[in-house]
């Protein structure tokens, strides 16, 4: 009989005195033998599917978690997206407002221009003989220009002067115009002066002070600037 050591206290055999009195103490058979006790303990406490691993771990003197570990449920990627908005880069990536670069024709946008003329007429209450009222002029600042026929009257870039077309899209810094030659031209606002005519009124638009998103423009308070120079 080996002497019990500290490392293997559980696995060691019972002392001889105890063993002799086993029947009087009514000890079960498996208790007298350490390994038999352990296997019965495992059978009682470990789920059957983990038993093989537990036994193997026991043989290899490894630590094993006997509880059934339920992993925390992580939110799926779909749920995550639903909660937060797209960031600026992603929004740019989607590019849902970009005018299609496919061949745009002038004629298909003529009805848009007709619609815009009607809109302007009702917005400004135009009368060809009378000068435009001051409040009507202020309304021009906040008007929608999609469908307007704009001409570049002056520009820092000489090749842009004379470009004319129907406004297809307005962005913060540019107009996108469809010209009579069915070209889609992107014209920067900041370096150009634009003109258009409405029922006998010539409107000049100084692009330098018009660099605003159209959605912001309608709620913006415009302030006078020092000069209209390019």
């Amino acid at each position, binding site marked *: 009989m080996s002497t019990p050591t500290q490392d293997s206290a559980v696995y060691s055999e019972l002392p001889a005195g105890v063993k002799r009195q086993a029947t009087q103490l009514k000890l079960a058979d498996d208790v007298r033998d350490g390994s038999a006790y352990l296997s019965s303990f495992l059978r009682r406490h470990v789920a059957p599917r983990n038993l093989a691993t537990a036994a193997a771990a026991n043989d290899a003197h490894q630590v094993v978690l006997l509880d059934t570990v339920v992993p925390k449920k992580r939110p799926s990627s779909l749920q995550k997206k639903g909660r937060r908005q797209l960031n600026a880069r992603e929004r740019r990536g989607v590019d849902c407002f970009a*005018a*299609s670069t*496919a*061949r*745009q*024709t002038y*004629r*298909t946008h*003529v*009805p848009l*221009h*007709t619609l815009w*003329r009607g809109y302007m007429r009702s917005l400004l209450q135009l009368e060809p003989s009378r*000068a*435009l009222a001051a409040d009507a*002029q*202020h309304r*021009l*600042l906040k008007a929608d220009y999609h469908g307007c*026929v704009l*001409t570049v*009257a002056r520009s820092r870039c000489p090749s842009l002067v*004379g470009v*004319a*077309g129907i406004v*297809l*899209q307005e962005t913060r810094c540019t107009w996108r115009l469809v010209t*009579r030659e069915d070209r889609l031209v992107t014209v920067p606002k900041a370096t150009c002066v634009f*003109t*258009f*005519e*409405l029922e*006998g*009124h*010539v*409107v*000049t*638009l*100084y692009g330098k*002070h*018009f660099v605003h998103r159209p959605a912001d423009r309608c709620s913006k308070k*415009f*302030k*006078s*600037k*020092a*000069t*209209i*120079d390019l």
Partner: protein
Amino acid sequence: MAAFSDLNILHMENVSTKEKLLMAIKLGYEVVAINNYVENVLVKDDKGKSKKEPSKVVEIPAPVKVHLTERDIGDLKVKGASLKQLSRFTTVLSDPGQWRRMQEDDIQAYDLLAVQPTTEKLFHMACTAIEIDIITFNIGDKLTYYLKPAPVSKAIERGVHFEIVYSEGFHSSSRRTFIANALRIMHVTHGKNVIISSGAREAMDVRGPYDVANLGLLIGLQEPQSKDAISTNSRACVLHANTRHSVKSVISVRSSSELKAEDQWTVEACRKEASEESGDDSSESAAEEADSSFDAARPESKRRRMDGV
């Protein structure tokens, strides 16, 4: 470099303005402003019954435009240039209430507005608050107030210009004060937003642009600054005046009849469209049909892409 300009040709009852203009053309100026000088836009009751109310309205003369023949501007035509005539209104600012009078239509009809403030407070007001283009000084007399840097820098930021009238320097009595005052203006503006103009009472008062630029060196301007004072700065001043007439410096509206012949092309595209539209009105259904057939001629995929725009 912008064209040479003289923004102060004084219009007087008994001296021919045309003669001065011809002199300016001969010397090579391309932009000229004819100045109507009105001492006081508000005349108060001297008896002092009610000092606040003006007893009579001062008649403001209409802007002057001198008719010049092709032959008159021949010297400029040779260079491929032409003369641009502007109108300018100048008054002495001695009361804050005058600004209200100046906002009326008869004064606003002028291209350029200039004031000559008499006190430091009014100078401050002219620099920071009221919408004018030029601040001028009675440069032949001693300035009665100190030019503070703060309102001056504000004026520069707003695009208001300071004027130095060089014809005052020709008289021996005022030459000393002219140079002293001009140096003070230079000192406080650092040569920014300064214009030099003739203020000519007679044709002989107008000097050639290069002579004026040399005169600028005498009053403390650097050589390029001196040239700017009679060209680039004057142009900026005129543009500032145009800005004043626009709606929040974003849009300006004119009647089509005011559009010059050389600018007609800028509205041609619009006119073309408008005339086509009015022509289409009678046969709208036909036009629509043409449109739809035009649409049908395109492949399905392309049509959809265009609709999505």
